[in-house]
Every structure is written in structure tokens, then in C-alpha cells.
């Protein structure tokens, strides 16, 4: 680890002069059309210019913005989510992260420069997620992009897993509680919002704080992000949105959202798709937790006009990284432009950090991905990464 750190420090020393000119055959700013034979100029960690013209300190085939992954799944395990309550609304996953984990580095080197970290989905409402840069000194101070970016919850079976009914035994832990079923999960979520509306229990400071947070979700000030995998969970989440008039809802891991196009469009919710799997089967009602996401899912959402982002879910296998998901989605019919946006500007916008990242625009953070060929093609790969103008993966050594 130390030798790795030493190497990292050495790399930083080489790149101490953080001003770069990167020349590429194509530059994809995302915010506008591609620029052929273009350069990106980086000064003091920010993008200083994106224009035509050749010749640069670094050269590559293509430049895209750094990727944004809204479901990165880098956490400290069960210790990232408070289990003493199913509605741990006040908790912040920012207080539970391991920024020393090598998985951040792995994401960074694959081109993911911004990530939304969430608590593990063991609570109905598990607390606030946080948007971070994936590199730099492993401190919140350095990496924080947006605190309290979303309030995270889960609809489905996961929060009920591990809970038991007290039936037939003496409760010996707080896991003898609701929910133990999907119905119970929805009940707990609805109950929390209902009580927030009523201001119930607000004499107690902790409850008052929880209610205030939930009212911000109801007013649209805070984004609600719910894990909803199966078709019925997607429906349940969208019904909750409609019942309470929750303005901003993101469905995460919405693997079967394509089965409910009508209600999805009507609800105005956004979607984060999980990685495409090599295996999987149609859910025919007999295997409730085995889901299927056809390759054309992203194309369908695009055609419907549903805002969506792709995600890697922290995938490690070959072909499971975020950049690979864009390629899979294109294989399913999604356009290159939409695929690129689904890993950059769309997730940045959904997470409320588009002012800083997500596209190549003057003044934005210099988070860049350098490619040796056309992005997302099977024969192309990421050969360089800049984070805030620092060269963290050097194309000259690749």
C-alpha cells in the first residue's frame, strides 16, 4: 500500500504543473456537438478552453468528460447504514465512507471521476447520499462535491431482509420489526411521509429533524432516490411519488422499469439503470427476485423521453465497468450521443452537480477521459484520466 502511495505521490509530483493542452482527433464536450481535431486547455484544475486546433502536451484519439456514476456501491458494508431504525433519515453516508478503499482508485482509473455514494439498502429510508470525486487526498474536505445530494431509500425486499416477526418468540433484537414483507416496506415509507406531513412527534428534536428532512423531499428541495428493482417495486415507488406529490424522484437499479412505460412517463421520475448482465431471465412470477434487463432498455427509455443514467454498481468484471455499460446500451440501439450523456451530463444533472462536472465547458472542473479510439467501441479503451486537472492516468505510459 505504501509503495502504491509512493507511486501515487510521484505521479502527482510529475504532474505538478497542472496546466495541460490535450489534442485529440475528436472531442466530445456533450454540451454541444463533437469537435474534430480539437484541443482542450486545462488551467488550475479547470477547463480553460475547448476549441479547434491541433498540437498539445498530451495526445489521444478522443476526449470525453469524466464519467459520473450514480450507483457506485463503494461502502463500508453494513456499517454504512444505521440498522437501529428503518427510517434512518438523519444519517449521512458521508460519515461512514472508507475513502482509502482501493475501489475508488479503480473507478477513477476506469474514467469515473464523480460518484454518488449511498448507504447500503438495508433500511426503508437509509439517509443521505453524497456526491464525491473519486480521487485526490482521501478526505471529505478534498473530495466532496455535494453533501446531502439525495435521500436514499429502498422499495422491495431488501429492507425487510433480516427482520423477523415476533410471532412465536420473545423479541431479542430490534430486527423483530416491520417490515418483513414488500407491503411492510411500502407501509413504513408511506408512514414516514404521512407523519412528516402531520408533524407527528415533532416535540422530540430527532423526530422534528427527520420530519423536516422528509418535508424537504415533499417540497422538491431534496431529491428522493429509491432502489426499486422488480416491476412491482417500480410501481410501488411511482405510486408513492404520485400519492405524496414528491417532485423529484430517481429510481435506482430499476432493472424492470421498462415493463411500466406508461406510469413511468406519467410520473416524471428519472431512472438509473443497473449494469447489463450476461445472465438473467424473464420474470414470470415464479422467481420473484430474478430480474431481466434487455439490451434495448436504455433505447426504450430514450424513446420515451425518460431521463436515465447508466451505472456500474461497482462492477469489477471485464465488461462490467461504467464505460462498458454505454457500449452495451448502444448494442441495444441507443445512439452514441445518448449513451455518452447517460454516463456524463445526465447523471451530473440528476445529482445536482452539473455546474461542476458532466460536460466539457469552460470553467467546469477539468475531469477528462482520454481514449485511444472511438469511445465505447469494443476495441477502444481509456488510456488517460485527469481529475481536477491532475493527471491520474498518464496516456504516455499506456
Amino acid at each position: 500500500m505504501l509503495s502504491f502511495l509512493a507511486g501515487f505521490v510521484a505521479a502527482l509530483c510529475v504532474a505538478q504543473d497542472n496546466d495541460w493542452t490535450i489534442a485529440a482527433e475528436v472531442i466530445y464536450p456533450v454540451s454541444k456537438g463533437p469537435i474534430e481535431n480539437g484541443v482542450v486547455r486545462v488551467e488550475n484544475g479547470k477547463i480553460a478552453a475547448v476549441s479547434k486546433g491541433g498540437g498539445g502536451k498530451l495526445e489521444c484519439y478522443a476526449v470525453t468528460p469524466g464519467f459520473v456514476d450514480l450507483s457506485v456501491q463503494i461502502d463500508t458494508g453494513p456499517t454504512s447504514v444505521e440498522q437501529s431504525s428503518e427510517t434512518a433519515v438523519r444519517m449521512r453516508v458521508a460519515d461512514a465512507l472508507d475513502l482509502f478503499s482501493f475501489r475508488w482508485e479503480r473507478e477513477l482509473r476506469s474514467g469515473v471521476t464523480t460518484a454518488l455514494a449511498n448507504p447500503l439498502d438495508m433500511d426503508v429510508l437509509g439517509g443521505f447520499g453524497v456526491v464525491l470525486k473519486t480521487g485526490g487526498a482521501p478526505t471529505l474536505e478534498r473530495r466532496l462535491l455535494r453533501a446531502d445530494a439525495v435521500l436514499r431509500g429502498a422499495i422491495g425486499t431488501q429492507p425487510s431482509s433480516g427482520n423477523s416477526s415476533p410471532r412465536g418468540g420473545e423479541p431479542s433484537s430490534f430486527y423483530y420489526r416491520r417490515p418483513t414483507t414488500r407491503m411492510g416496506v411500502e407501509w413504513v415509507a408511506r408512514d414516514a411521509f404521512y407523519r412528516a406531513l402531520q408533524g407527528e412527534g415533532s416535540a422530540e428534536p430527532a423526530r422534528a429533524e427527520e420530519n423536516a428532512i422528509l418535508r424537504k423531499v415533499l417540497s422538491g428541495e431534496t431529491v428522493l432516490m429509491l432502489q426499486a428493482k422488480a416491476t412491482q417495486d417500480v410501481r410501488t415507488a411511482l405510486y408513492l411519488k404520485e400519492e405524496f406529490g414528491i417532485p423529484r424522484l430517481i429510481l435506482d437499479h430499476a432493472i424492470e422499469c421498462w415493463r411500466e412505460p406508461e406510469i413511468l412517463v406519467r410520473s416524471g421520475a428519472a431512472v438509473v439503470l443497473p449494469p447489463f448482465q450476461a445472465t438473467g431471465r424473464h420474470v414470470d412470477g415464479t422467481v420473484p427476485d430474478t430480474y431481466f434487463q434487455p439490451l434495448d432498455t436504455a433505447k426504450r427509455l430514450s424513446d420515451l423521453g425518460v431521463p436515465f443514467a447508466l451505472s456500474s454498481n461497482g462492477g469489477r468484471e471485464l465488461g462490467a465497468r461504467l464505460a462498458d455499460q454505454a457500449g452495451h446500451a448502444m448494442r441495444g440501439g441507443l445512439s452514441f450521443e445518448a449513451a455518452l450523456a447517460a454516463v456524463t451530463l445526465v447523471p451530473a444533472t440528476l445529482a445536482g452537480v452539473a455546474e461542476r462536472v458532466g460536460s466539457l465547458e469552460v470553467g467546469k472542473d477539468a475531469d477528462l477521459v482520454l481514449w485511444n479510439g472511438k469511445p465505447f467501441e469494443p476495441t477502444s479503451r481509456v488510456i488517460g484520466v485527469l481529475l481536477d486537472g491532475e493527471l491520474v492516468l498518464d496516456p504516455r505510459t499506456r
Partner: protein
Amino acid sequence: MNSVWFAAGALALAWNGGPSGSGGETPSAVPAPQILQVRAREVWTAAGAKLTDGLVVIADGKIRSVGPASALDPKLPHVEHDGVLTAGLIACGSQLGGWSLQEDTRAVTSEARARLAFEPEQRAYAEALAAGITTLVLTPGPDNLVGGLTCAVKTHGGRVLAPEASLALNLSSRALGRSTVSSGFFFGAADEPGAVQPDGSAETTARTGRGTREPTSYSGAVTMLRELFGRGQGVFGRARKGELPVVLEAWDRHEVLRATDLARELGLRGAVRGAPLAGDEHVVAALKTAGLGVIVGPYGADQTRASLESLARLSAAGVPVAFATGAPAATPHDLRLSAARALAAGATPEAAWRALTSDAARLAGVGDALGELAAGREADLVLWSGNPLDLTARVVAVYVDGARAFPAGTH
């Protein structure tokens, strides 16, 4: 009945006819001070400060003077030692007290006081004494988010030096462990290598007694502490005002940074306990910024090099370091072993010695009274056969509060 009277009579006899101090004190209205002079071939007064053929004069349990052996008054009681004389060693963390300290029914036992679990008759104290350790810190509720008040005690004589030395907090997974669900239930959880438990074993989240205590998460722990310190009642208010230092247990590097962030946010001073990788550049920077010291060790045979190098890196950055002992589960000699291993990994002898004495005294909250041989300080002395940082040197004698405590028997 007779035998009882007989025993009482013998006791009275001993009481009246006990040996008066050797030497030639003359009786007077004000009792003459109890004087002891200790002369040694080498006297380590402080880290890096040595006197050749030096003399420490003790009066009534305190050091009266430290100087050259020429000041020795042969008419007064004295000891001559052909070896090294140093201050007593201080272990900032210890498991002494054992089960008496394990009040883990609740995560917050802020009013628990370790001094009430101090049982000086335990053999472990005598063993620590024989290893040259004269002062130890006891930590209540070691697996609790808020354990309570630590205390600094002498290993001989049963004296509690600092009954409320610090407030013990635990931000490590150990404080969450009793309530954590086995990660086997959930995909993607805790699957990365490298997470190391204090005992060096791989991290596991499978526990018994799950779901019986909050918090179960780091976020829950931080939220609870913010609330407790925010309300500022009792010990929490005292800690925020700087009247009471804290000892924050944290092992993995992310735990240490969480602890230093929290200390900065709440304005707490004190030390981090644990931190096997305290020498990591980011951890060093965080400790320095937060103004916290660190209590590391004990270093066993399986300690990684990165751990062993911590002392050198921390001392170079000016962060005070002290050692913990694994006694009584391990031998109390592990305290000196830790220093020797850190020394072998690049620490200076001065830094290693400070960690055993003066820095340890500071972090134990008794920095004014102990840790160096200087006039006015408590007379806790160790006579070594050679250089105490050399593990072949052994403890010849130990004095606590000016009286010989090891080997047992009168002077």
C-alpha cells in the same frame, strides 16, 4: 481467642518497634523528610538527556533534585546502581481491569468511571511493575461508543493518579460490532481485502448478539456523538470546553479520519487510540491538523512494517505518540518491545523514549507529574541493567512514589 490476642500483640510490637529509617535522622517536632538518594552510572532525565554518574534525590515520594553523583550525602540513605536509571514507563492503553470494565449493555455509558474497576491487588499490576511500567491508563466500556471516564493509576500502592483522565470514545467497528448484521446477507458488502482488526485478523462482520444495541453504523455513531456533544451535558460539556481530553478509538485509516474530523468539528482535544497505519501521510496530516496525539500498539511479531514506521513518521511531524500494552492477555514487556520495534523501523531513540515516558504522560493527562526525572515530579524510577531500549536489558528495581516496589521487600 488467645491466638487472636497474640497476633494483635505481635502487630502492636511491630508497629512500635518497627525499623526506623537507616541513616542518622534526628527526631524533631516536624518529621524529617523521608530521603532516598539513587546514584546510577547513567541517568536518563528526559528523552535525549543523559547524566553520566548521576544522582536523583527523593524526598517524601517526590524528586527533590537531579544532578551529579558528587552531591551524594553518604550519611543519608542511598542506593548505588551500576546501570541505567530512568523514569517509570507509562502505558496509555491497557486491558487491565478486564471484565470489570466491560459494561456493554449500552453504547453510551458516559458516567462510568474506570477508577471503580481498579483492583490493585490483581497480579497483572505486579507483572506490569516488574516490566518497568509504573503508570497505566484504564479504559471503561472499551467496546462502547462512549465508554466513560478513564483513569491513570500506579501499578504499585493502589494510588489513582488521575481519577478522570479522559473521556473514552470508540469510533471503531468494535463499537458497532454487537449490532452489525452478517454481511453474508447482502451482496457487495465488505468484500475488499485489507480491512484489519486490532488483533491482526481479517475484518468480519459476522457477530453474535446482533441487533441489540444502536448505533450499528458509522453514520449512526457520528450522529449520536454530534447530538451528545451538541447538548453538552456532563462530561460532554466538559470535553467541549477543553477541560476533559478525549481518547478516540479508531483502527482503520478511514476510522481515524472520521475521528479527527469529528474532533475538529466538536473542538475536542486528546488522542486517537489504535491507528495501526497512523504513519500514512494523510493520517499524519489529519492528526496534526486536529492537534491529536496517538496511542499505538502493542506491536507484536506480526506487525506490518507500515505500522512499525508510524512512530518515526509521527514524531517527525511533531505528533505525540504513546504505546498501549496488551497486558494481562499478553506480557507487559510488549510495551518496551513496541518501542524497540519502532526503533528498528527508523524511529529515533529520543522519539521511542518519549513514547514510553513523557509523551505517554502527556497523553495520560499526567504530563506535569510524570514522564521525566526532574525536581518536583513524582519519584517513579526504574533501575535497568543496561539501555532500556535494548531488549536484553532487564529491570533491576522499580521505585514508585519514592519507595521500592520491585523486587518486593523493604529497602
